[in-house]
């Protein structure tokens, strides 16, 4: 079979697989890719060794499919919990207004726009300009992380203190949410220091060191809140039109591309942080632009970070997918770059086409089954996965992460503060005083 057909079939298979997996709540594509990497390594010196022409496009397809379709569980299975939520994400508002289908499809259009932006605009410029910026920013990444942390902490709005006379009582009422945010950030940071310096997880599975903590910080609180939530998902109405035009798409690409780009290029900065910064920089208040921008941002963040590994002359590894590939393969030149770009384009088209049928399937599913039961099953799967990979120690870490991850939800601050788990220890390490702090803590 010619390399063209091998690549095409591989990317198609990877995309279809991850598109289906993306509909399962709580499962991350990197967990699946991690298992695949182990399989590829095991087969490496046998007669069944998998060549790079097969696994590279397949993994590209998996990342693209997941980046595009994991919106489905995020919107359709992420019912907000009125019992404690102070803010509700726009995607969830669409769900509660019976417009979940519209919300996911607008995000999908954003993903497709992100694919166009990445392949047609970023990819041709990247080999020429990114090595330059890389050389200029060399040695400066640490303070970029520090100013992101500074802005993240300084820009949170005090959500209380709206009524009553001036004075300390009002100030305290306002600052309760901010203090909860600061506490979340520093507790998550402490957890990060522990896990990055002397993780209790067995060294045999150290590549999943952070996984239990992330599951605890983000996935388990989401399941728990869904389970105790008193809200029901209203009947969902299919939309005849998405009410979007070229201007909305362009402005979504503008804000989402900036957010996703920041997250993809700078180390440790995630899509959520990039989205927050882009939201502040571009101030797009239209909810459609926000939702579509999230689609663009997520696509650029996951797929763009992966693409950076293959940019000729750049040699930049960003994101979990790229790190996993790096253990298997070292990209060499333009051939690989064009193959990856082609795979991204093909996978984007396939995953976009799969969006509508899969959304309808999930809508039928939540119509038939109580989403609280779905969340319970998801929680069980997550716990089994954590225990299977990292053992009981991993489960304990996940529980501690859950405690920290619940704080912002229950006390009205930003969940973004949970990212202190990586931002704080890595910024300290990059600035060269991480060891001083771990020394104070007695970890080193």
């Amino acid at each position, binding site marked *: 079979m010619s390399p063209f057909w091998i690549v095409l079939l591989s990317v198609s298979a990877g995309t279809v697989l991850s598109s289906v997996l993306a509909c399962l709540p709580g499962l991350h594509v990197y967990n699946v890719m991690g298992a695949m990497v182990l399989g590829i390594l095991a087969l490496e010196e046998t007669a069944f060794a998998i060549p790079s022409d097969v696994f590279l496009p397949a993994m590209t397809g998996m990342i693209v499919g997941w980046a595009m379709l994991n919106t489905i569980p995020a919107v359709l299975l992420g019912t907000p919990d009125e019992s404690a939520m102070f803010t509700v994400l726009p995607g969830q508002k669409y769900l509660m207004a019976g417009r979940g289908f519209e919300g996911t499809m607008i995000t999908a259009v954003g993903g497709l726009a992100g694919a166009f932006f990445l392949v047609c605009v970023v990819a041709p410029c990247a080999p020429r300009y990114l090595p330059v910026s890389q050389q200029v920013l060399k040695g400066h990444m640490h303070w970029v992380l520090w100013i992101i942390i500074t802005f993240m902490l300084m820009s949170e709005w005090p959500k209380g203190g709206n009524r009553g006379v001036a004075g300390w009582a009002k100030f305290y009422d306002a600052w309760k949410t901010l203090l909860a945010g600061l506490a979340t950030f520093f507790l998550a940071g402490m957890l990060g220091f522990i896990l990055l*310096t002397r993780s209790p997880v067995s*060294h045999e599975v150290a590549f999943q060191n952070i996984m239990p903590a992330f599951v605890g910080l983000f996935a388990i609180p989401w399941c728990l809140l869904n389970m105790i939530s008193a809200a029901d998902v209203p009947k969902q109405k299919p939309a005849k039109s998405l009410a979007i035009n070229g201007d909305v798409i362009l402005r979504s690409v503008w804000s989402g591309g900036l957010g996703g780009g920041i997250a993809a290029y700078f180390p440790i900065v995630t899509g959520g942080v990039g989205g927050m910064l882009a939201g502040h920089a571009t101030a797009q208040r239209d909810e459609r632009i926000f939702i579509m921008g999230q689609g663009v941002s997520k696509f650029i963040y996951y797929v763009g970070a992966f693409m950076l590994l293959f940019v000729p002359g750049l040699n930049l590894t960003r994101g979990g997918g790229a790190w996993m590939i790096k253990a298997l393969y070292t990209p060499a030149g333009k051939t690989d770059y064009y193959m990856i770009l082609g795979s991204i384009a093909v996978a984007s088209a396939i995953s976009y086409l799969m969006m509508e049928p899969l959304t309808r399937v999930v809508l039928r599913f939540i119509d038939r089954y109580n989403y609280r039961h779905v969340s319970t099953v998801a929680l069980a799967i997550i716990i089994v996965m954590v225990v299977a990979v990292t053992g009981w120690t991993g489960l304990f870490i996940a529980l501690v992460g859950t405690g920290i991850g619940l704080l912002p939800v229950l006390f009205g601050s930003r969940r973004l503060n949970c990212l202190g788990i990586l931002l704080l220890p890595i910024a300290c390490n990059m600035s060269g005083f991480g060891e001083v702090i771990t020394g104070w803590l007695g970890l080193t």
Partner: protein
Amino acid sequence: MTEMKEALPGHETQSHEMNCPKCGRFVGAVTKCPYCGSKVEKRMSLIGLRWAAILLATIGLFLLFLMAKHRDVPVVMLGNIQPTMNFGQIRVIGQVETDARPFRTGTGMSFNVSDGTGKIIVFVSKKQMDALTESNLVPKAGDAIDFVGSLNISDEQSSMRLLSVKELHLTRAPAAAVRLADVTTAMKGTAITIAGKVLDVFPPPADSKRPYALKIKDDSGEQTINFWQAEYDQIADKDMLNGAWVRARVEVSTYQNKLQLKLGSGLDLEVLEEPPAAVETKTPAQKAAAAYRQETAPPRDFSRGRSVPATSLSVGAVTVDQAGQTVRVRGRVESVSPPQEGTRQPYAVMLADGEASLRVSYWSNVNEVITVKPTPGALFEMEGVVEVYRDKPQLKVQSGYKVRLVDDTPASAPAVDITQAVAVSSIALADKGQVRVVRGTLGAPRALRGGVVYPLTDETGTIDLVLWESIIPGEVLGALEEGAQIAATGEVGEYEGQLQLKAVPGYSAMVIP
């Protein structure tokens, strides 16, 4: 005026617990109504969740901290490292293979460690480097080492990052006590202990890049120990050196084919209160044995935890029939062709062994890992997969760890023929691509990525002399400095409209005494 209103969208599904039971207003998650002050009862599940969150986030985190703090980092053999251990913290007990070398950027240093089952490069941050230097713990080849680091596994460059200076334990390799007269270039690369009376200390001239020179004498002869300002500052009794008896642990090396004794740390020099005991004189047989550098079989190479058996071959023994096989080849480097800037070509090295030659290629990222870069004339051993290139065998090296220097003494070091020197002003654009010899004085250097540029001035003009680290031996580069009189052979080129001379591979620049 109050008007009647219907339920708001979404409110029909909102829990009543979110409203004050007394006044009916929305109060959210609080337990006391901000409007009427009534107590708002919450569901047990929510109250339980709140307390569970607080306890897990504080006490749970503390327990996790205690667990981590008291955990012993497991000792792992380098040969047993698996990709699933990536980012893991492990303890390695082994031997330092190469001296720790600071990065050119000054942001840290690296050294290689072997434990008999494999080897790995260890990166040290700047702060850690400073701490190691201060405590005289900079690893040297041959030292026994026990340290904790975190793993970074990749297809090409698996490495470790030193986690803590406190958890690095170093036992220096035994250094034989040697009489000054017995120190020879045959001991190159070894650490020895010498003792004697200081005759003089020569500090470097102001604004010079030269090292300190400490001249000492014992019953058998005289030697000079070289060190830098940093090491000088570390010497405990540096003001009393002149005329004092000292003992020093030094490394034997060569500089421009002359013996050089390098002091690694000021803490390695001890001022003695009385003359040292005489060193036993070696018999001719012992001297011969000391001079003989035993070639030990290299430990199994570490590559992602898997070992690939390699057959050691001479250059001429590699044939196209071996395509696909992994072989190890030893030969002298004939030439090194780095990729042209802006392209993604591989490095091409020609290995020669007598009449036979073999093309070896590898990518830039492989080159970055190679500790000692191949230079013309040096004897190298390389391991890779045999491929067919233009109907000839070619060795494709996949890992930088598999390029190893055996002997950097060139078979015949090419000297610059000063008699061929031309005036700088005579070099014109028309000479582009031609090789020219020039002599003159070096100006202030400008660093390049992978090289350095010196303006070279003679009586007639100035031209930029470009020296790439990948093709010019380190000792040649190290000998050059601003103000030095040199002669150089290079190819005429042009960059941004300016003429330049690109030093040809090998010993193509030399300082004129």
